[in-house]
């Protein structure tokens, strides 16, 4: 719970989880391709955004 209070941690966590789930999602018949594309876009957003906020909180850059 404490971990989630760090800025960007939640977004990064969701991004990483979605990135890991890309493979299994692709296995779903008929809509797997679409789900994987959506998961990739959202995972990218989560990892970049969460990573940026986390880095900013740690280093103070961009403030």
């Amino acid at each position, binding site marked *: 719970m404490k971990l989630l209070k760090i800025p960007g941690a939640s977004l990064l966590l969701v991004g990483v989880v979605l990135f890991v789930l890309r493979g299994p999602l692709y296995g779903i018949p008929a809509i797997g391709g679409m789900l994987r594309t959506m998961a990739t876009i959202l995972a990218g*957003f*989560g990892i970049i*955004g969460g990573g940026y906020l986390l880095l900013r909180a740690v280093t103070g850059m961009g403030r």
Partner: protein
Amino acid sequence: MASKTPVTAPVTLTNIDSSSWEHQTDRAALGALQQIPGFDTLLKKVVGIFGEKNIATIYQAAAVKVGPTQYPSIHESLVKVCAVLDTDVPPLYISQTPLVNAGAVGMDNPFIVLNSSLIELMGPAEIEAVLGHEVGHIMSEHSLYRTLLFLILDFSAPSMPIVGQAILPIMLALQEWSRKAEISCDRAGLLATQNLDAAMAMHAIMAGGIRGRIDELDIDAFIEQSDEYREATGLTAYYRMMATIGRSHPFPVIRVAELRNWVDSGDYAAIVGGEYRQRGDARPVMDDVKDAGREFSDRAAKVFEDSDRYVNDALLNFINAAKDRFDGTSTSV
């Protein structure tokens, strides 16, 4: 929809340079493109040969050219707007079209087109705001790059799928610039009329004006609607971003909000008070690029922060609900 602010004669902005009101992203993009040697000239030649003359001929043939004896009140409005912005009066055509719209066309000999339905819906003050907006496009020389955007949109994506994908980032960047160019020219429209109610009413009418019922249009309610849209968070904010990304024009509610922000920032009052850049006072392009970069970075950080907050709330709610279910206790956060 009566005007709430007292309307006084607008102040003439002698020798004003368009960079005084241009949005920093618009200015940076235009400045960067103008730095490429020969790019402007080449593009002007290509577009001039294939587009401008052709379009000008069509309007000359199929629309009505406004003048001192042809729709004199509209001509007078155009002359007034150009006098306030201290610029030449461009040719103006009225085109019989049901779509409520207007445009500035051409580079070497630019002209303005107003659709007849726009004139039917709007009062003289709103028409002046539209004319000021279009004169702003001409003064900022937006036509060249807008034409480039429309050429890319028309020819690349539908006809050549692979090329379309390859130039997608360029297209999205041009669309982002185009949206900022519209915001710049909304400011020009406001400066030309110096009537904020009319400048905002113009957007409300474009969004959903009904012929014969314009007096029922409530600008304050439209401003509230604009605030509601801007304050959206979470998934709504994501959908809002996705709906905007491929558009050449910002949504009317965003344009109203941007106009109000600009007025609140004090920049509008400063210009009307005489503090503006004169033609010939060049500002280093890199300063504009730095300003634009800072603005993009702030916007991206805000999107990330909003998304993080939304995901955080969702995760904590999920964890609390799971705890409640398994051991009947709830953790306060």
